[in-house]
């Protein structure tokens, strides 16, 4: 456990991606099976301990600490696991090892688990305690993604990372066959016909300087739909719906799964489509992150898929083909298969970049986020290869708003005032809140804002500070909607901070009436 804890701590503080990969690689190369495999599983989020939830830990902490002191501490630290690790009253030096923890949890009766955990916590120092809690509750949040772990494994085994990506979903912890292959002690594990996730191809945002230096005649245009990216996998051995991040979301959409009566791997956008019309993202949200669903929900928010790529037709891998050829295969396959609840994402004809620019601006009316631009000769490549796929989102709307309230963030931003409420002026010269934003600033700006907030607090309401109405921010947002939940009557979609406007006096911030015109 100590080695794992030290890895997590070093990863958290390691400044760069390369340092992190080096740390992971050193760990995987030096630790034995099955410990390293379990560590990998922890980073992958592939471990689940049903008897050990954060509620269990909270209850344990409650039996060992004063409730009021705990809540004051949690408010300061901002992270539950870290609060428990630090406030736990003992200081031990005899941490259990990782496989032993996992085995013990697997064999324990549910009722025995809290006692087990309590014993381990007593034996650990704060840093191992934190690693243990993070392990038990999932969500290591150490700034090392599964992708980095795979890159480290690829370096260790001298293989291409995509070779690991391809087989990943056919593997299970503690990944002994994977390590055996990487160390030249065994064959490459193959997924066969298992319904595994295939690495997706992602797009770069179009920056101003890209517009002139790219020959857009080589590209095909499609709408950028405001849904979620999915991979549809149907093989003779199983059917799956994966999110872009390789998460299996099949359980939320049983009616889609049932309709998969073919053998193929497809790429598309999941949307709520009502009478042929694409509904706003907020409708789709009603269907996301559910372990089960009801027929009422299925009828109220009917989902469908806009298809834009075909990766496998039966067992034939099409990914090396250029986009144009894959598109032709997709159209032929679609015509022959007529899959239920699916449509083809239409290609949008265009002759010049100016025409595309007009189309992109029209996107707001089309309930789409902008345009996707894909090179006709591009193969389907894993990751975000440069210059092949572009996303050209419509320009955000913006307004100047005044900081009104601030709250400490959680996770990465914990113990900094990083969550803000912004307001604009009413006709009566009053500020009313219109948006909350948590992102869009640099670490340097965050430090500045945090300090400013501490120095300009005029009132506190629990964790919330009210500040002097002086600091102006330029906010970007995608749309303004009517809302009965806000005093201003308006809610902004995707608000984010574009710029700090220390140059602008608060009185010159935007007025509510100008915002109303945008609805």
């Amino acid at each position: 456990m100590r080695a794992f804890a030290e890895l997590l701590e070093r990863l958290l503080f390691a400044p760069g991606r390369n340092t992190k990969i080096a740390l992971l690689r050193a760990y995987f190369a030096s630790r034995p099976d099955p410990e390293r495999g379990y560590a990998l599983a922890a980073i992958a989020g592939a471990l689940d301990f049903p008897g050990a939830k954060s509620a269990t830990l909270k209850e344990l902490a409650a039996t060992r600490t004063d409730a009021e002191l705990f809540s004051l501490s949690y408010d300061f630290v901002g992270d539950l696991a870290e609060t428990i690790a630090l406030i736990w009253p003992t200081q031990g030096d005899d941490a259990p090892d990782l496989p032993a923890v996992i085995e013990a949890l697997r064999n324990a009766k549910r009722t025995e688990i809290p006692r087990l955990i309590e014993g381990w916590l007593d034996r650990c120092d704060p840093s191992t305690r934190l690693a243990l809690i993070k392990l038990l509750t999932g969500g290591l949040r150490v700034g090392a993604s599964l992708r980095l772990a795979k890159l480290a494994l690829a370096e260790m085994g001298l293989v291409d990372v995509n070779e690991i990506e391809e087989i990943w979903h056919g593997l299970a912890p503690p990944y002994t066959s994977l390590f055996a292959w990487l160390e030249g002690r065994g064959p490459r594990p193959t997924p066969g016909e298992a319904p595994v996730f295939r690495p997706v191809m992602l797009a770069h945002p179009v920056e101003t300087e890209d517009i002139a230096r790219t020959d857009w005649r080589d590209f095909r245009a499609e709408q950028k739909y405001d849904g979620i990216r999915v991979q549809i996998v149907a093989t003779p051995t199983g059917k799956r719906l994966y999110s872009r991040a390789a998460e299996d979301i099949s359980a939320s959409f049983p009616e889609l799964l049932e309709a998969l009566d073919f053998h193929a791997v497809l790429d598309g956008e999941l949307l709520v489509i009502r009478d042929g019309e694409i509904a706003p993202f907020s409708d789709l949200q009603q269907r996301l992150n559910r372990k089960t669903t009801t027929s009422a929900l299925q009828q109220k928010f009917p989902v469908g898929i806009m298809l834009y790529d075909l990766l496998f037709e039966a067992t034939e891998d099409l990914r090396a083909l250029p986009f144009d050829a894959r598109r032709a295969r997709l159209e032929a396959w679609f015509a022959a298969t007529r899959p239920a609840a699916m449509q083809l994402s239409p290609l949008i004809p265009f002759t010049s970049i100016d025409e595309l620019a007009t189309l992109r601006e029209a996107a707001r009316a089309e309930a789409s986020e902008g345009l996707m631009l894909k090179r006709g000769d591009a193969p389907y490549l894993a990751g975000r290869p440069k210059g092949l796929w572009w996303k050209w989102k419509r320009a955000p709307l913006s307004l100047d708003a005044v900081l009104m309230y601030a709250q400490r963030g959680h996770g990465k931003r914990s113990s900094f005032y990083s969550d803000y409420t912004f307001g604009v002026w009413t006709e009566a010269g009053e500020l009313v809140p219109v948006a909350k934003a948590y992102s869009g600033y640099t670490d340097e700006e965050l430090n500045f804002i945090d300090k400013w907030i501490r120095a300009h607090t005029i009132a506190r309401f629990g964790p919330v500070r009210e500040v002097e109405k002086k600091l102006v921010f330029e906010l970007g947002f995608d749309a303004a909607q009517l809302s009965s939940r806000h005093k201003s009557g308006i809610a902004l979609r995707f608000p984010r901070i574009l710029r700090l406007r220390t140059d602008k006096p608060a009185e010159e911030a935007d007025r509510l009436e100008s915002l109303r015109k945008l609805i």
Partner: protein
Amino acid sequence: MFCSNTPHPERWLKPTPAGLYCLPGDFYIDPLRAVPRAIVTHGHSDHARPGHDHVLATPETLAIMRTRMGAERAGATQQALAYGETLQINDVNIKLVPAGHVLGSAQIVLDHAGSRAVVSGDYKRQPDPTCAPFEPVRCDVFVTEATFGLPVFRHPDPAKEIEKLLRSHALFPDRTHVIGAYSLGKSQRLIAMLRQQGFDAPIYLHGAHANLCALYESLGVPLGDLRPATVAQKTQMKGAMVLAPPSAVGERWGRRLEDPVVAQASGWMRVRQRAKASGIELPLIISDHADWDDLLATIAEVQAPEIWVTHGAEEALIRACALRQIRARALSLVGYGEEDGA
């Protein structure tokens, strides 16, 4: 010590916007703005402010004030009172007792009409080779800080943290270790602890640290081979230890060094996301303030039936006092805890 007919300290020691004011003695302790008479606990700028007519403090604190703000701003008249000596002003007896925070830091012991208040200023209980250790004094009211007044703050053994720094230095012999540390107190303590653990190589200093290190040495705290970092060649500092103010290490000043390992020595480093968000690669949990356990141990030792909390996380400390049946209240003095990086 405190009988029913003696006036409770709250009748003669009052929090005011200018700081804690002693009525019968007509002086302020660590006043937040210029006043006719001030008693200063220690040299950090949030406690020792410029422009007072008359300043009473330990000789070390007076010297630190003169070095930092210039003799003319460090009090029109300065009066030194060594640890353990007493002085009477009107009918208040004053004694300065070591607080263990930085060189010269003192608790102000005030006796008036049979009751005693101790204003501790900032203090710590961990060992520090650069200053006299904290001495607990029994009293009726103990005025304490609460910078780390939350049970999540338990500072580890500082020697272990220095070992961590030396291990990293051995692991990355070509990288410059640049340690963010407050220029008064923390810097000298780190240097002295490195020397205690046998680190004899030159230590390079940011300009902000040099004067105060020289002053410490002149006041009898040896710090070994110190060199200015600002004029040193970048390559000369390859693999060296460099000390700089926390604000400089993450900035251009720190980045011009050779592939630096950015460290910071502060009690705040205990909270990871906080350390992380300030761009630190090597957090060192070393503080010149009492941690949670030491705050409570000190409160128990001075046996005061009543605790006043000047600044920091008052709420939690007051709660912990209540759990121990000790009266406690927050003085809500605004203006402390802003300088020393804890």
